[in-house]
Protein backbone atom coordinates (compact mmCIF):
# COMPACT_ATOMS: atom_id res chain seq x y z
CA UNK A 1 0.00 0.00 0.00
CA UNK A 2 1.57 3.26 -1.11
CA UNK A 3 1.88 6.01 1.48
CA UNK A 4 0.14 8.90 -0.25
CA UNK A 5 -0.07 12.66 0.21
CA UNK A 6 -3.65 12.27 1.37
CA UNK A 7 -2.80 9.75 4.07
CA UNK A 8 0.04 11.82 5.41
CA UNK A 9 -1.61 15.22 5.19
CA UNK A 10 -3.82 14.75 8.22
CA UNK A 11 -1.12 13.33 10.50
CA UNK A 12 0.44 16.58 11.61
CA UNK A 13 -0.49 20.24 11.83
CA UNK A 14 2.11 22.84 11.08
CA UNK A 15 2.50 25.91 13.24
CA UNK A 16 4.87 28.81 12.78
CA UNK A 17 7.22 30.05 15.48
CA UNK A 18 5.30 33.31 15.42
CA UNK A 19 1.96 31.58 15.98
CA UNK A 20 3.39 29.84 19.01
CA UNK A 21 4.75 33.13 20.37
CA UNK A 22 1.40 34.82 19.88
CA UNK A 23 -0.35 32.01 21.72
CA UNK A 24 -2.44 30.74 18.84
CA UNK A 25 -2.34 27.34 20.57
CA UNK A 26 -2.12 26.70 24.28
CA UNK A 27 1.36 25.71 25.34
CA UNK A 28 3.27 24.99 28.50
CA UNK A 29 6.82 25.99 29.33
CA UNK A 30 9.22 24.36 31.72
CA UNK A 31 12.80 25.11 32.54
CA UNK A 32 14.34 22.09 34.20
CA UNK A 33 16.88 22.49 36.98
CA UNK A 34 19.49 19.93 36.07
CA UNK A 35 22.65 20.13 38.12
CA UNK A 36 25.39 17.58 38.26
CA UNK A 37 28.70 17.27 40.08
CA UNK A 38 30.68 14.73 38.13
CA UNK A 39 33.33 12.65 39.84
CA UNK A 40 36.17 12.74 37.36
CA UNK A 41 38.20 9.88 38.68
CA UNK A 42 41.97 9.53 38.83
CA UNK A 43 42.72 9.99 35.13
CA UNK A 44 40.80 13.12 34.29
CA UNK A 45 41.38 14.33 37.83
CA UNK A 46 45.14 14.31 37.25
CA UNK A 47 44.72 15.83 33.79
CA UNK A 48 42.91 18.79 35.31
CA UNK A 49 45.35 19.12 38.20
CA UNK A 50 48.27 19.25 35.75
CA UNK A 51 46.47 21.82 33.60
CA UNK A 52 46.36 23.99 36.70
CA UNK A 53 50.13 23.61 36.86
CA UNK A 54 50.43 24.67 33.25
CA UNK A 55 51.23 21.17 32.05
CA UNK A 56 49.55 18.59 29.88
CA UNK A 57 49.76 14.99 30.99
CA UNK A 58 49.03 11.77 29.09
CA UNK A 59 49.12 8.07 29.95
CA UNK A 60 50.74 5.14 28.21
CA UNK A 61 49.39 1.71 27.38
CA UNK A 62 52.08 -0.89 27.90
CA UNK A 63 50.50 -3.23 25.40
CA UNK A 64 49.92 -1.07 22.31
CA UNK A 65 52.39 1.61 23.45
CA UNK A 66 50.02 4.44 22.62
CA UNK A 67 50.60 7.59 24.62
CA UNK A 68 47.05 8.74 25.14
CA UNK A 69 45.48 12.07 25.77
CA UNK A 70 43.15 12.68 27.55
CA UNK A 71 44.74 10.21 29.95
CA UNK A 72 42.70 7.18 30.93
CA UNK A 73 43.05 4.41 33.50
CA UNK A 74 42.60 1.65 30.95
CA UNK A 75 43.30 1.39 27.24
CA UNK A 76 39.96 1.01 25.48
CA UNK A 77 41.49 -0.93 22.59
CA UNK A 78 43.71 -3.39 24.47
CA UNK A 79 41.33 -3.41 27.41
CA UNK A 80 44.06 -3.47 30.04
CA UNK A 81 44.96 -0.94 32.76
CA UNK A 82 47.33 1.73 31.47
CA UNK A 83 50.86 2.22 32.71
CA UNK A 84 52.98 5.28 33.28
CA UNK A 85 52.00 8.90 33.21
CA UNK A 86 53.79 10.86 30.50
CA UNK A 87 54.09 14.63 30.29
CA UNK A 88 53.52 15.83 26.76
CA UNK A 89 54.23 19.21 25.18
CA UNK A 90 51.84 22.08 24.96
CA UNK A 91 52.41 22.33 21.23
CA UNK A 92 50.80 20.40 18.43
CA UNK A 93 49.53 20.38 14.87
CA UNK A 94 46.11 21.13 13.49
CA UNK A 95 44.38 17.90 12.39
CA UNK A 96 41.18 19.60 11.25
CA UNK A 97 39.30 22.81 12.03
CA UNK A 98 36.16 24.89 11.51
CA UNK A 99 35.35 28.56 10.92
CA UNK A 100 32.10 28.99 12.77
CA UNK A 101 29.59 31.81 12.48
CA UNK A 102 27.27 30.27 15.08
CA UNK A 103 27.47 29.70 18.82
CA UNK A 104 26.25 26.70 20.80
CA UNK A 105 22.66 27.91 20.84
CA UNK A 106 22.66 28.33 17.05
CA UNK A 107 22.77 32.08 17.60
CA UNK A 108 24.51 34.00 14.82
CA UNK A 109 27.72 35.87 15.62
CA UNK A 110 27.83 39.49 14.49
CA UNK A 111 30.48 38.81 11.87
CA UNK A 112 29.64 41.90 9.85
CA UNK A 113 29.98 43.92 13.06
CA UNK A 114 33.55 42.69 13.41
CA UNK A 115 33.12 39.77 15.79
CA UNK A 116 35.72 37.10 15.10
CA UNK A 117 34.22 33.74 14.13
CA UNK A 118 35.01 30.76 16.36
CA UNK A 119 37.78 28.54 15.08
CA UNK A 120 37.66 25.31 17.05
CA UNK A 121 40.05 22.58 15.98
CA UNK A 122 41.25 19.08 16.71
CA UNK A 123 44.89 19.54 17.72
CA UNK A 124 47.26 16.57 17.76
CA UNK A 125 49.47 17.11 20.78
CA UNK A 126 53.24 16.74 20.42
CA UNK A 127 54.56 13.93 22.58
CA UNK A 128 51.36 11.93 22.45
CA UNK A 129 50.92 9.22 19.84
CA UNK A 130 50.11 10.25 16.29
CA UNK A 131 46.46 11.10 15.88
CA UNK A 132 45.92 11.76 19.57
CA UNK A 133 44.02 15.01 19.41
CA UNK A 134 42.05 17.21 21.74
CA UNK A 135 39.33 19.70 20.94
CA UNK A 136 40.23 23.30 21.61
CA UNK A 137 40.04 26.78 20.13
CA UNK A 138 42.47 28.49 17.81
CA UNK A 139 43.06 32.21 18.03
CA UNK A 140 45.55 34.92 17.04
CA UNK A 141 45.31 33.58 13.50
CA UNK A 142 43.34 34.66 10.42
CA UNK A 143 40.46 32.15 10.32
CA UNK A 144 40.85 31.80 6.57
CA UNK A 145 44.57 31.08 6.73
CA UNK A 146 44.41 28.00 8.95
CA UNK A 147 45.88 24.92 7.29
CA UNK A 148 45.99 21.23 8.00
CA UNK A 149 49.25 20.42 9.75
CA UNK A 150 49.76 23.97 10.99
CA UNK A 151 51.99 24.08 14.07
CA UNK A 152 50.38 25.62 17.13
CA UNK A 153 51.17 26.32 20.76
CA UNK A 154 48.94 26.69 23.81
CA UNK A 155 48.30 30.11 25.27
CA UNK A 156 47.74 29.65 28.97
CA UNK A 157 45.85 31.71 31.50
CA UNK A 158 48.14 33.24 34.09
CA UNK A 159 48.88 30.80 36.95
CA UNK A 160 46.70 32.57 39.51
CA UNK A 161 43.66 32.37 37.19
CA UNK A 162 43.97 28.67 36.44
CA UNK A 163 41.41 26.47 38.20
CA UNK A 164 42.12 22.98 36.92
CA UNK A 165 39.96 22.99 33.82
CA UNK A 166 40.41 22.62 30.07
CA UNK A 167 39.87 26.36 29.87
CA UNK A 168 43.15 26.94 31.74
CA UNK A 169 44.41 26.89 28.20
CA UNK A 170 42.79 29.92 26.58
CA UNK A 171 43.44 28.73 23.04
CA UNK A 172 46.19 27.57 20.71
CA UNK A 173 47.97 29.94 18.36
CA UNK A 174 50.31 29.36 15.42
CA UNK A 175 54.00 29.09 16.10
CA UNK A 176 55.77 31.53 13.80
Amino acid sequence: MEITDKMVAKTATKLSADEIQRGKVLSVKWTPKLKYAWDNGPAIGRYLAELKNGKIIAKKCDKCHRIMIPPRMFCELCWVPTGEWVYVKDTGIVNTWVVSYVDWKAGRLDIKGGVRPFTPAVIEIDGASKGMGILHHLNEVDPWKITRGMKVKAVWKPAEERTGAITDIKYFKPIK
Partner: protein
Amino acid sequence: MSKRVAIIGIGTTGFRATTPDVSYRELTYEAAMKAYLDAGVEPKDIGSFVSTAEDFFEGYSIADEYSPDQVGAVLRPIYTVPGDFIQSLASAYMMILSGIGPISVAQGLSKASNMLTLSEMVTFAMDPIYNRPLKESPHAVAAMEMARFMYETGTTREQCAKVVVKNKKNALNNPYAGHSVLINTDYVLNSEVISYPLTQMDISPHSDGAVVVVLAEEETAKALCDKPIWIRGIGWCSDTPGLETRNWGEAIYAQFAAEMAYKMAGIRYPRKEIDFAEINDEFSYKELQHLEAMRICKKGEAGPLTEIGGTEIAGEFPVNTSGGCLGVGNLYELNGGHKVLEVVRQLKGEAGKNQLKNVTTGLAQSWRGVPTTTGTVVILSN
Protein backbone atom coordinates in the same frame (compact mmCIF):
# COMPACT_ATOMS: atom_id res chain seq x y z
CA MET B 1 20.48 -24.07 18.54
CA SER B 2 19.33 -24.78 22.06
CA LYS B 3 17.06 -22.22 23.63
CA ARG B 4 18.84 -22.28 26.97
CA VAL B 5 20.91 -19.29 27.98
CA ALA B 6 22.82 -18.91 31.22
CA ILE B 7 24.59 -16.26 33.21
CA ILE B 8 28.23 -17.34 33.22
CA GLY B 9 29.81 -14.35 34.88
CA ILE B 10 28.90 -11.36 36.95
CA GLY B 11 30.96 -8.49 38.29
CA THR B 12 30.21 -5.54 40.51
CA THR B 13 31.91 -2.69 42.29
CA GLY B 14 29.53 -2.92 45.23
CA PHE B 15 27.21 -0.08 46.09
CA ARG B 16 27.77 2.90 48.32
CA ALA B 17 26.38 6.36 48.80
CA THR B 18 29.24 8.17 47.09
CA THR B 19 32.13 7.14 44.86
CA PRO B 20 34.22 10.31 44.66
CA ASP B 21 37.43 8.51 43.79
CA VAL B 22 36.24 7.16 40.45
CA SER B 23 34.35 8.35 37.41
CA TYR B 24 31.72 6.31 35.60
CA ARG B 25 34.50 5.00 33.36
CA GLU B 26 36.55 3.35 36.09
CA LEU B 27 33.44 2.14 37.88
CA THR B 28 32.16 0.31 34.83
CA TYR B 29 35.60 -0.98 33.87
CA GLU B 30 35.99 -2.56 37.30
CA ALA B 31 32.64 -4.33 37.09
CA ALA B 32 33.33 -5.44 33.52
CA MET B 33 36.80 -6.75 34.34
CA LYS B 34 35.45 -8.77 37.24
CA ALA B 35 32.58 -10.11 35.15
CA TYR B 36 34.83 -11.18 32.27
CA LEU B 37 37.31 -12.82 34.66
CA ASP B 38 34.44 -14.60 36.35
CA ALA B 39 33.17 -15.82 32.98
CA GLY B 40 36.62 -16.60 31.58
CA VAL B 41 36.07 -14.44 28.49
CA GLU B 42 37.73 -11.51 26.78
CA PRO B 43 35.98 -8.67 24.98
CA LYS B 44 36.76 -10.20 21.59
CA ASP B 45 34.79 -13.34 22.55
CA ILE B 46 31.65 -11.32 23.16
CA GLY B 47 29.13 -11.08 20.33
CA SER B 48 27.03 -8.19 21.54
CA PHE B 49 26.78 -5.71 24.39
CA VAL B 50 23.89 -3.80 25.91
CA SER B 51 24.29 -0.85 28.23
CA THR B 52 21.64 0.73 30.42
CA ALA B 53 21.43 4.49 30.84
CA GLU B 54 19.06 7.46 30.85
CA ASP B 55 20.40 10.76 29.54
CA PHE B 56 19.27 12.97 32.36
CA PHE B 57 20.60 10.62 34.98
CA GLU B 58 24.03 10.49 33.39
CA GLY B 59 24.06 14.19 32.67
CA TYR B 60 24.79 13.60 29.01
CA SER B 61 22.56 13.79 26.02
CA ILE B 62 23.16 10.64 24.04
CA ALA B 63 24.64 8.81 26.99
CA ASP B 64 25.33 5.77 24.81
CA GLU B 65 28.34 7.63 23.36
CA TYR B 66 30.17 6.92 26.56
CA SER B 67 29.36 3.23 26.78
CA PRO B 68 31.75 1.24 24.57
CA ASP B 69 35.18 2.07 26.00
CA GLN B 70 34.61 0.72 29.49
CA VAL B 71 33.26 -2.67 28.48
CA GLY B 72 35.70 -3.36 25.66
CA ALA B 73 33.12 -2.77 22.99
CA VAL B 74 34.94 -0.29 20.75
CA LEU B 75 33.73 -0.85 17.17
CA ARG B 76 31.57 -3.73 18.34
CA PRO B 77 27.80 -4.16 18.43
CA ILE B 78 26.70 -2.22 21.47
CA TYR B 79 23.67 -0.08 22.06
CA THR B 80 21.86 1.42 25.02
CA VAL B 81 18.52 0.54 26.52
CA PRO B 82 17.10 3.49 28.42
CA GLY B 83 15.25 1.18 30.72
CA ASP B 84 15.77 -1.16 33.62
CA PHE B 85 18.84 -3.39 33.70
CA ILE B 86 16.68 -6.48 33.36
CA GLN B 87 15.44 -5.11 30.01
CA SER B 88 19.08 -4.92 28.92
CA LEU B 89 19.48 -8.48 30.13
CA ALA B 90 16.44 -9.46 28.06
CA SER B 91 17.99 -7.81 25.00
CA ALA B 92 21.29 -9.58 25.50
CA TYR B 93 19.35 -12.82 25.91
CA MET B 94 17.33 -12.26 22.72
CA MET B 95 20.46 -11.42 20.75
CA ILE B 96 22.04 -14.75 21.62
CA LEU B 97 18.89 -16.56 20.55
CA SER B 98 18.89 -14.54 17.31
CA GLY B 99 22.34 -15.80 16.43
CA ILE B 100 24.38 -12.69 17.19
CA GLY B 101 27.18 -14.68 18.79
CA PRO B 102 27.06 -17.21 21.63
CA ILE B 103 28.08 -14.71 24.31
CA SER B 104 26.56 -11.35 25.18
CA VAL B 105 26.91 -8.78 27.92
CA ALA B 106 24.54 -6.49 29.83
CA GLN B 107 25.90 -3.52 31.73
CA GLY B 108 24.42 -0.99 34.12
CA LEU B 109 25.68 1.88 36.19
CA SER B 110 24.51 4.31 38.82
CA LYS B 111 26.22 7.56 39.70
CA ALA B 112 23.26 8.90 41.60
CA SER B 113 25.57 10.83 43.92
CA ASN B 114 26.51 13.05 40.98
CA MET B 115 22.91 14.10 40.41
CA LEU B 116 22.47 17.17 42.55
CA THR B 117 18.88 18.02 41.64
CA LEU B 118 17.54 14.48 41.66
CA SER B 119 13.99 15.34 42.57
CA GLU B 120 13.83 17.85 39.73
CA MET B 121 15.10 15.23 37.34
CA VAL B 122 12.46 12.72 38.31
CA THR B 123 9.79 15.42 38.08
CA PHE B 124 11.10 16.13 34.60
CA ALA B 125 9.82 12.67 33.64
CA MET B 126 6.22 13.54 34.41
CA ASP B 127 3.71 14.47 31.72
CA PRO B 128 4.59 18.04 30.71
CA ILE B 129 1.01 19.14 30.11
CA TYR B 130 -1.10 17.40 32.72
CA ASN B 131 1.18 16.64 35.63
CA ARG B 132 4.34 18.70 35.80
CA PRO B 133 2.63 22.08 36.12
CA LEU B 134 1.15 20.90 39.40
CA LYS B 135 4.70 20.80 40.77
CA GLU B 136 4.07 17.71 42.86
CA SER B 137 7.12 15.93 44.14
CA PRO B 138 7.71 12.40 42.88
CA HIS B 139 7.42 11.20 46.48
CA ALA B 140 3.86 12.52 46.53
CA VAL B 141 3.02 10.28 43.60
CA ALA B 142 4.42 7.28 45.45
CA ALA B 143 2.59 8.29 48.61
CA MET B 144 -0.72 8.41 46.74
CA GLU B 145 -0.09 4.93 45.46
CA MET B 146 0.86 3.72 48.94
CA ALA B 147 -2.34 5.11 50.39
CA ARG B 148 -4.47 3.43 47.74
CA PHE B 149 -2.61 0.14 48.11
CA MET B 150 -3.09 0.20 51.88
CA TYR B 151 -6.78 0.97 51.43
CA GLU B 152 -7.40 -1.81 48.91
CA THR B 153 -5.47 -4.50 50.74
CA GLY B 154 -5.77 -3.57 54.39
CA THR B 155 -1.98 -3.33 54.63
CA THR B 156 -0.84 -1.20 57.58
CA ARG B 157 1.96 1.33 57.95
CA GLU B 158 3.49 -0.94 60.56
CA GLN B 159 3.74 -3.78 58.06
CA CYS B 160 5.45 -1.46 55.58
CA ALA B 161 7.79 -0.32 58.33
CA LYS B 162 8.66 -3.95 59.01
CA VAL B 163 9.93 -4.21 55.42
CA VAL B 164 12.33 -1.36 56.11
CA VAL B 165 13.57 -2.94 59.33
CA LYS B 166 14.06 -6.34 57.69
CA ASN B 167 15.87 -5.07 54.62
CA LYS B 168 18.21 -2.68 56.35
CA LYS B 169 19.09 -5.45 58.79
CA ASN B 170 19.76 -7.94 55.98
CA ALA B 171 22.06 -5.39 54.43
CA LEU B 172 24.36 -5.54 57.47
CA ASN B 173 25.69 -8.86 56.22
CA ASN B 174 25.94 -7.84 52.61
CA PRO B 175 29.42 -6.52 51.84
CA TYR B 176 28.05 -4.76 48.78
CA ALA B 177 25.37 -2.82 50.63
CA GLY B 178 25.57 0.90 51.27
CA HIS B 179 22.76 1.66 53.72
CA SER B 180 22.58 -1.02 56.34
CA VAL B 181 21.43 -0.20 59.86
CA LEU B 182 19.67 -1.83 62.81
CA ILE B 183 16.41 -0.07 63.63
CA ASN B 184 12.89 -0.92 64.75
CA THR B 185 9.46 -0.15 63.31
CA ASP B 186 8.87 2.74 65.73
CA TYR B 187 11.95 4.43 64.34
CA VAL B 188 10.55 4.14 60.84
CA LEU B 189 7.06 5.31 61.77
CA ASN B 190 8.38 8.27 63.72
CA SER B 191 10.92 9.45 61.20
CA GLU B 192 10.26 12.66 59.29
CA VAL B 193 7.09 12.59 57.22
CA ILE B 194 7.95 13.28 53.60
CA SER B 195 4.56 12.79 52.01
CA TYR B 196 2.10 10.95 54.22
CA PRO B 197 2.04 8.00 54.61
CA LEU B 198 5.66 7.92 53.42
CA THR B 199 8.31 8.80 55.99
CA GLN B 200 11.98 9.40 55.34
CA MET B 201 12.84 5.82 56.31
CA ASP B 202 10.27 4.35 53.92
CA ILE B 203 12.23 5.77 51.01
CA SER B 204 15.42 4.18 49.68
CA PRO B 205 18.43 6.46 49.76
CA HIS B 206 20.48 6.33 46.58
CA SER B 207 23.75 4.54 45.89
CA ASP B 208 26.43 4.44 43.19
CA GLY B 209 27.81 1.30 41.60
CA ALA B 210 28.08 -0.81 38.49
CA VAL B 211 27.11 -4.34 37.49
CA VAL B 212 28.09 -6.28 34.39
CA VAL B 213 26.59 -9.67 33.51
CA VAL B 214 27.90 -12.13 30.92
CA LEU B 215 25.44 -14.49 29.22
CA ALA B 216 26.13 -17.52 27.06
CA GLU B 217 24.13 -20.08 25.15
CA GLU B 218 23.99 -23.59 26.55
CA GLU B 219 26.99 -25.30 24.97
CA THR B 220 29.32 -22.39 25.54
CA ALA B 221 27.99 -21.92 29.08
CA LYS B 222 28.69 -25.53 29.97
CA ALA B 223 32.17 -25.35 28.47
CA LEU B 224 33.17 -22.16 30.26
CA CYS B 225 31.39 -22.35 33.55
CA ASP B 226 31.08 -24.74 36.49
CA LYS B 227 27.92 -23.21 37.80
CA PRO B 228 25.93 -21.63 34.96
CA ILE B 229 22.82 -19.92 36.23
CA TRP B 230 20.05 -20.58 33.73
CA ILE B 231 17.50 -18.02 32.64
CA ARG B 232 14.26 -19.95 32.95
CA GLY B 233 11.91 -17.10 32.29
CA ILE B 234 12.01 -13.40 31.61
CA GLY B 235 9.29 -10.81 31.23
CA TRP B 236 8.78 -7.07 31.02
CA CYS B 237 5.76 -4.86 30.66
CA SER B 238 4.75 -1.23 30.51
CA ASP B 239 1.36 -0.21 31.79
CA THR B 240 0.00 3.26 31.11
CA PRO B 241 2.38 6.15 31.74
CA GLY B 242 -0.49 8.46 32.57
CA LEU B 243 -1.19 9.18 36.22
CA GLU B 244 -4.83 9.68 35.38
CA THR B 245 -5.30 6.36 33.66
CA ARG B 246 -3.50 3.99 35.97
CA ASN B 247 -4.60 1.49 38.52
CA TRP B 248 -3.19 2.96 41.73
CA GLY B 249 -3.65 0.04 44.07
CA GLU B 250 -2.14 -2.76 42.03
CA ALA B 251 1.18 -3.07 40.25
CA ILE B 252 -0.27 -4.38 36.99
CA TYR B 253 3.10 -4.08 35.23
CA ALA B 254 4.60 -6.50 37.76
CA GLN B 255 1.71 -8.88 37.29
CA PHE B 256 2.08 -8.98 33.50
CA ALA B 257 5.86 -9.15 33.57
CA ALA B 258 5.70 -12.00 36.08
CA GLU B 259 3.08 -13.93 34.10
CA MET B 260 5.24 -13.64 31.00
CA ALA B 261 8.22 -15.01 32.93
CA TYR B 262 6.21 -17.74 34.66
CA LYS B 263 4.78 -18.91 31.35
CA MET B 264 8.24 -19.16 29.83
CA ALA B 265 9.55 -20.98 32.89
CA GLY B 266 6.57 -23.29 33.11
CA ILE B 267 5.78 -22.07 36.63
CA ARG B 268 2.19 -22.28 37.84
CA TYR B 269 2.54 -21.89 41.59
CA PRO B 270 5.25 -19.29 42.14
CA ARG B 271 5.15 -19.48 45.95
CA LYS B 272 5.96 -23.17 45.81
CA GLU B 273 8.17 -23.38 42.73
CA ILE B 274 10.34 -20.36 43.48
CA ASP B 275 12.56 -20.41 46.56
CA PHE B 276 13.28 -16.72 47.17
CA ALA B 277 13.07 -13.34 45.50
CA GLU B 278 14.81 -10.00 45.13
CA ILE B 279 12.04 -7.47 44.74
CA ASN B 280 11.94 -3.76 44.15
CA ASP B 281 11.38 -2.07 47.49
CA GLU B 282 12.33 1.44 46.46
CA PHE B 283 9.51 2.52 48.73
CA SER B 284 8.71 0.16 51.60
CA TYR B 285 5.16 -0.63 50.48
CA LYS B 286 6.39 -1.56 47.01
CA GLU B 287 7.83 -4.84 48.28
CA LEU B 288 4.37 -5.87 49.48
CA GLN B 289 2.56 -4.55 46.42
CA HIS B 290 4.92 -6.41 44.10
CA LEU B 291 4.67 -9.68 46.04
CA GLU B 292 0.90 -9.59 45.64
CA ALA B 293 1.01 -8.52 41.98
CA MET B 294 3.23 -11.50 41.20
CA ARG B 295 0.90 -13.99 42.91
CA ILE B 296 3.55 -14.90 45.46
CA CYS B 297 1.10 -13.65 48.08
CA LYS B 298 -2.63 -13.32 47.75
CA LYS B 299 -4.15 -9.86 47.87
CA GLY B 300 -3.76 -8.44 51.36
CA GLU B 301 -1.48 -11.25 52.48
CA ALA B 302 1.97 -9.74 51.96
CA GLY B 303 1.72 -7.39 54.93
CA PRO B 304 0.72 -10.09 57.46
CA LEU B 305 3.34 -12.48 56.04
CA THR B 306 6.02 -9.87 56.60
CA GLU B 307 4.73 -9.18 60.10
CA ILE B 308 5.18 -12.78 61.19
CA GLY B 309 8.66 -12.94 59.68
CA GLY B 310 7.67 -15.01 56.66
CA THR B 311 9.95 -13.00 54.35
CA GLU B 312 12.97 -13.01 56.65
CA ILE B 313 16.12 -14.93 55.74
CA ALA B 314 14.97 -17.76 57.98
CA GLY B 315 11.39 -17.37 56.82
CA GLU B 316 9.23 -19.40 54.52
CA PHE B 317 9.79 -17.14 51.46
CA PRO B 318 12.89 -14.98 51.88
CA VAL B 319 12.60 -11.61 50.19
CA ASN B 320 15.51 -9.23 49.65
CA THR B 321 18.21 -11.14 51.50
CA SER B 322 20.58 -8.56 50.02
CA GLY B 323 18.86 -5.72 51.80
CA GLY B 324 16.90 -4.63 48.73
CA CYS B 325 16.88 -1.02 47.58
CA LEU B 326 16.28 0.08 51.15
CA GLY B 327 19.44 -1.58 52.41
CA VAL B 328 21.68 -1.40 49.38
CA GLY B 329 20.51 1.90 47.95
CA ASN B 330 18.30 2.97 45.09
CA LEU B 331 20.36 2.44 41.94
CA TYR B 332 17.79 3.75 39.43
CA GLU B 333 18.43 2.07 36.07
CA LEU B 334 20.75 -0.39 37.76
CA ASN B 335 18.25 -1.67 40.35
CA GLY B 336 17.50 -4.74 38.27
CA GLY B 337 21.23 -5.43 38.03
CA HIS B 338 21.61 -5.53 41.76
CA LYS B 339 18.59 -7.86 42.07
CA VAL B 340 20.08 -10.24 39.51
CA LEU B 341 23.43 -10.09 41.32
CA GLU B 342 21.90 -11.25 44.59
CA VAL B 343 19.89 -14.05 43.00
CA VAL B 344 23.02 -15.29 41.25
CA ARG B 345 25.08 -15.12 44.46
CA GLN B 346 22.47 -17.15 46.31
CA LEU B 347 22.16 -19.75 43.57
CA LYS B 348 25.94 -20.13 43.36
CA GLY B 349 26.32 -20.45 47.11
CA GLU B 350 28.31 -17.22 47.31
CA ALA B 351 26.01 -15.13 49.47
CA GLY B 352 28.15 -15.31 52.59
CA LYS B 353 26.39 -14.77 55.91
CA ASN B 354 23.00 -14.35 54.27
CA GLN B 355 23.27 -17.59 52.31
CA LEU B 356 20.00 -19.47 51.96
CA LYS B 357 20.14 -23.23 52.08
CA ASN B 358 19.15 -25.56 49.26
CA VAL B 359 17.89 -23.00 46.84
CA THR B 360 17.44 -23.84 43.18
CA THR B 361 15.23 -21.12 41.75
CA GLY B 362 15.19 -17.40 42.44
CA LEU B 363 13.25 -14.46 41.05
CA ALA B 364 14.55 -10.93 40.44
CA GLN B 365 12.00 -8.19 39.90
CA SER B 366 12.45 -4.53 39.21
CA TRP B 367 10.44 -1.36 38.60
CA ARG B 368 11.61 1.82 36.91
CA GLY B 369 10.46 4.11 39.64
CA VAL B 370 8.16 7.15 39.75
CA PRO B 371 6.37 8.12 37.50
CA THR B 372 6.59 4.92 35.45
CA THR B 373 4.57 1.77 35.40
CA THR B 374 7.25 -0.34 33.81
CA GLY B 375 8.49 -3.48 35.45
CA THR B 376 10.63 -6.48 34.72
CA VAL B 377 10.99 -10.02 36.07
CA VAL B 378 13.62 -12.68 35.51
CA ILE B 379 13.62 -16.22 36.94
CA LEU B 380 16.96 -17.95 37.39
CA SER B 381 17.89 -21.53 38.30
CA ASN B 382 21.15 -23.31 39.10
